């Protein structure tokens, strides 16, 4: 009966000491420093790991303590809401958040507002109408324009194919603002070109293994696809594997989104054509910088846009520099 007790205590003690180690040698100064929270969608995606690095760099430079929390799974809004509720209890000064759901997270942000915790929205916009209805207003939005990124990818596709292609699209999770915007941008960019035919468009839910399976199925149904647009690089990388498995490497152009390190390597190796680069490191940095401005009572612009870039074989070395 008593055996569970030491177990629980040990686990907690271990967890606490590990988390204190992470905070480093400044633990006695930590009490005096204002705490800025950064709540991410997940930490098992390089995009958010980069964002965290950028945020940490800014926090160290500006003398604030950064608390990073994330749900285990990217789509788990309820868990993200719990994290926000719990962080409010600890008296964080500013809450920076990448919402897992543009509308669903509003209930949590209402609680932040009622506790007088200012909110900075990063990467994924709140649904404007629902936010207005709920009376939630972020201090600022930091992110890149996903619609513009989609258009960038679409225009690139038109250029490299000479305006004639049979396109398969790997979508993100349906109903997500990010996924919808990227796809709308891409579709709008190719819509004016009569030679650009979208022959299939299926969700692969942002995941690499699903990208593989879905694209493999797509190739079965449409063996003549010559161009793929994936709304994220993980899905694109999955598709590249499927293309290799079908022995069609080099015959199908793959355009992704996010310019992950793996994707850049694939672009250098020639298995991938291009990827739209966002700069999550810059987003994380801007989020903490903005949080400090909020603490100091400075005003912020409504939007802080972070640049986008098309990474191709010609530019990939340069882009790697830029994201550091």
């Amino acid at each position, binding site marked *: *009966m*008593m*055996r*569970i*007790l030491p*177990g*629980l*205590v040990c*686990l*907690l003690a*271990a*967890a*606490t000491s*590990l*988390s204190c180690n*992470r*905070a480093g040698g400044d633990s006695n100064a930590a009490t005096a420093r204002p705490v800025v929270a950064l709540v991410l969608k997940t*930490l098992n995606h390089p995009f958010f790991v980069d964002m965290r690095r950028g945020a940490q760099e800014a926090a160290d430079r500006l003398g604030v303590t950064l*608390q*990073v*929390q*994330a*749900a*285990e*799974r990217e*789509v*788990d*809004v*309820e868990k993200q*809401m*719990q*994290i926000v*509720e*719990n*962080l409010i*209890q*600890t*008296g964080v000064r500013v809450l920076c958040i990448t919402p897992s*759901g543009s*509308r*669903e997270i*509003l*209930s949590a942000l209402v609680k932040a507002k009622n506790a007088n915790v200012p909110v900075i929205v990063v990467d994924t916009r709140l*649904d404007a109408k*629902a936010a207005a*209805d*709920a009376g939630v207003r972020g201090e600022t939005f930091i992110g890149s324009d996903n619609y513009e990124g989609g258009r960038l990818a679409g225009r690139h596709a038109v250029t490299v194919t000479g305006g004639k292609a049979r396109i398969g699209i790997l979508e993100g*999770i*349906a*109903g997500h603002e990010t996924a919808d915007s990227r796809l709308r941008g891409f579709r709008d960019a190719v819509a004016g070109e009569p030679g650009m035919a979208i022959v299939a468009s299926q*969700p692969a839910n942002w995941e690499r293994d699903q990208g593989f399976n879905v694209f493999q199925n797509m190739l079965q149904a449409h063996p003549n696809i010559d161009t793929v647009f994936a709304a994220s690089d993980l899905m694109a990388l999955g598709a590249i594997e499927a293309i290799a498995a079908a022995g069609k490497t080099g015959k199908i152009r793959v355009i992704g989104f996010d310019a992950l390190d793996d994707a850049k390597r694939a672009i250098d190796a020639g298995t991938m054509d291009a990827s739209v680069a966002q700069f999550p490191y810059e987003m994380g940095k801007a989020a903490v910088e903005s949080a400090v401005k909020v603490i100091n009572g400075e005003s912020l612009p409504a939007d802080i846009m972070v640049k986008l870039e098309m990474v191709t074989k010609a530019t990939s070395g340069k882009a790697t520099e830029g994201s550091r």
Partner: protein
Amino acid sequence: MKARRFGTLIGLVVLCLVLWALTPFFLTVSNLLNIAEQTSINAIVAAGMTFVILSGGIDLSVGSIVALSGVVLGLSLHAGYSPAVALPVMIAAGVLAGATNGLLIDRGRLPPFIVTLGMMSIARGAALLITEGRPISGFEESFRALATARVGFVPAPVLIMATVYLVAHFVLTRTTFGRYVYAIGGNEDAARLSGVRIHLHKPAIYAVSGLTSALAAMILTARLNSAQPIAGTMYELDAIAATVIGGTSLMGGEGTLAGTLIGALIMGVLRNGLNLLGVSSFLQQIVIGGVIVGAVLVDTVLKRPRT
């Protein structure tokens, strides 16, 4: 068995004491209510799961039934029906899915693992199909009160959780149905031979699980102001964990609802405490997993015959 229940409760109390010593934010009224509110959804799903596990079964479909009944609710409300109509409809959807599980397990003589694994996929697919994968968002304040209202200082989800547990505890301990749940889990053949109408009670047990999943979906939908077809993923594992930490035997026939509630609270307190302490989310998963395995270890050790 009594000692074990006691052990789980002591585990919860010690966990709370440790957190109280580690962070000043833990033991405040607002944080404790916060934990109770966050625990309510898992606790309610776990109540139904306890019925199933007590009967010697398992229900892997609860998370998908949460999603399906949630989107049925969302679509009904958006179609203009009042909550007085939409809530019975969504509860019916949950009960129906659960009863289907039970019928297939009983009449089809199929393993619960397989049937509910199938339902997990079917209900999820149905939820995605009828919503075209999109969340249904934005409901009337009158409906949202189910998650946002407070009676005195107690949040509505906590009251709903308390009601579910009182009713379920009564059913399990004071009705023949409740006794049969234990009897079927203890020894199904013996129960059948002594005249328990398995064909009636098995589907009913899984229907209870569908019912509690629907009630959880009701709170979840009101809480997020949105019904998501992807909601409830992995809820089955949280519910099984709460039940098992609470001392219910996966072999069936042994366990209590009070234990399950304490199990759900241990998980809720752990998650909350680890958030308050700023423990990395990766480490949180390790700690929670460790607690689950530790609790079952205790369970097994206690059940070993003494020499």
